[in-house]
């Protein structure tokens, strides 16, 4: 169930959108802010608000990387996998990160604290390797510093 606040935010987005469909991606992003992902139930509510069918909205939701249709942890780590980071030590960073958290790529830690996903180029190539946690960008990441970085997120 989306909160009234979320629904109002979606309706506000809709009000200044040229068409309902053009608000679809933004509406999904707003809905996702509640739990970090979009459940079937939330998706149907977005569809109702936009006057689109749930299938139409799901077609959009499943196309885009930053819309998630499966549960994620409280914090989402996007590990940059693109070529500059690969040259600068992505493989070692990934190995250390997954070891520290005890998960595989795409998985969530048992305590629900972190989900680790790969992301293509974060555009921080001059300071590779890079990763993002939620909205925070970290660059020149030394695998040995990971503990300090992760400690900031509850």
């Amino acid at each position: 169930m989306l909160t009234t606040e979320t629904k109002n935010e979606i309706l506000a987005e809709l009000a200044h959108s040229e068409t309902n469909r053009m608000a679809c991606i933004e509406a999904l992003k707003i809905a996702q802010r509640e739990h970090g992902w979009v459940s079937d139930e939330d998706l149907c509510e977005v569809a109702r608000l936009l006057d689109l069918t749930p299938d139409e909205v799901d077609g959009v939701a499943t196309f885009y990387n930053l819309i998630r249709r499966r549960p994620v942890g409280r914090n989402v780590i996007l590990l940059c996998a693109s070529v500059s980071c690969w040259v600068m030590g992505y493989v070692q960073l990934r190995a250390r990160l997954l070891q520290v958290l005890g998960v595989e790529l795409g998985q969530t830690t048992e305590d629900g604290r972190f989900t680790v996903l790969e992301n293509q180029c974060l555009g921080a190539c001059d300071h590779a390797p890079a990763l993002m946690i939620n909205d925070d960008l970290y660059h020149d990441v030394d695998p040995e510093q990971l503990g300090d970085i992760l400690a900031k997120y509850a």
Partner: protein
Amino acid sequence: MAAFNQQSNPDQRPLTAKIQPDGRALSLKDCEAAGGYRAVRRALGTMAPGDVTQLVKDSGLRGRGGAGFPTGPKWSFVPMGDNAPRPKYLVVNADEMEPGTFKDRLLLEGDPHQLIEGVILAAYAIQADISYIFLRGEYVLAEQRLATAIAEARGAGLIGKNILGTDYSLEVHLHTSAGRYICGEETALINALEGRRANPRSKPPFPQVCGLRGKPTIVNNVETLCNLPHIVNNGTEWFKGLSLTPNGGTKIYGVSGKVKRPGLWELPMGTTARTILEEHAGGMRDGLKLRAIIPGGASTDFLLESQLDVAMDFDTVAKAGSRMGTGTMIVLDDQTCPVGMVHNLMRFFASESCGWCTPCREGLPWVEKILEAMERGEGQPGDLEQLSRHVTALGMGLTYCALAPGAMEPLGSGLKHFRDDFERHIRDKRCGWS
């Protein structure tokens, strides 16, 4: 804020002249004091829309999004006059997802008003009613700064109804993307703005005539638009004079990989790759040798060390067998496995294919699997022929968009330049580098 080295005279680097060393963005007031929005006042006050297009044509400005398409001629396909379909759109491509590319981030975070001024000028030239800035979702700081700058500009009457008291009106909206490399392809971007799956569209019709919501639409890159205020202020001869070659202006070049000082520099168009790498990026880290570069983002052909004297502009890099692309180069050193690097690139393209065309959807994962097996020591005789067949089958003109042919550029050139490394992987049944 992206790293940025300010060495040269600000007159020689107009795009980055107002970017502050401490990384903060200028407010509208400070920006105007430094010359911001002068070009808008001049164009809207004294130039007809067609004059702006003609000026940009005469300047020879070419698109900085990767393909180098001439900007003025592109605009001139837009229907003009009272009978033109409405609304018309000017869309900013701020998707910047090409691996190894981080130049637009600098312009977006460092001087958002410069982009907005460029937007107004381009929109005025084609008489657009609405502009969308399509920004990748991960650029959170750029989003905040653009939102602030748009609000400031609207408050000052620089965007909105009757700009600066003229009869020209323009709405500017910021759209943040939800991810996927293909969104940067201009027709896919238009579908994304329409709230659809971001598959590209079949061309023709071209967006200039039939784009967003079926209306005339111009899509331009961030860096392209940032050049406009300076061309309007200083003229075409000045613009051409900034460059060392016939492709006018400056270029924001970047270097990533194991060099001493990775970063971005605004330099005269046509600066050689060697100068950028050695003088600006400080050469290779101690103990490493440069083996090759990918000159302009993931979808450009490798150039070998012996080719580094190439002038980095659209025409010269093309003659050397590659493309300038985004002008941000990725360095391959002599202790990094070229097969592994190509594998990383193919993994990227395979995961980002939108799935519309069979050769791209089926071919890229196949290529990825062959290279992965090779890296694991399970390469087979015949693999290289199989890879070469893909380079042909996914080539230019065989798919709806340039993602697949772009992917084949590092693969085809990698097979040519690093043949021994590929063969050794198969023969020795291992990657000797890891």
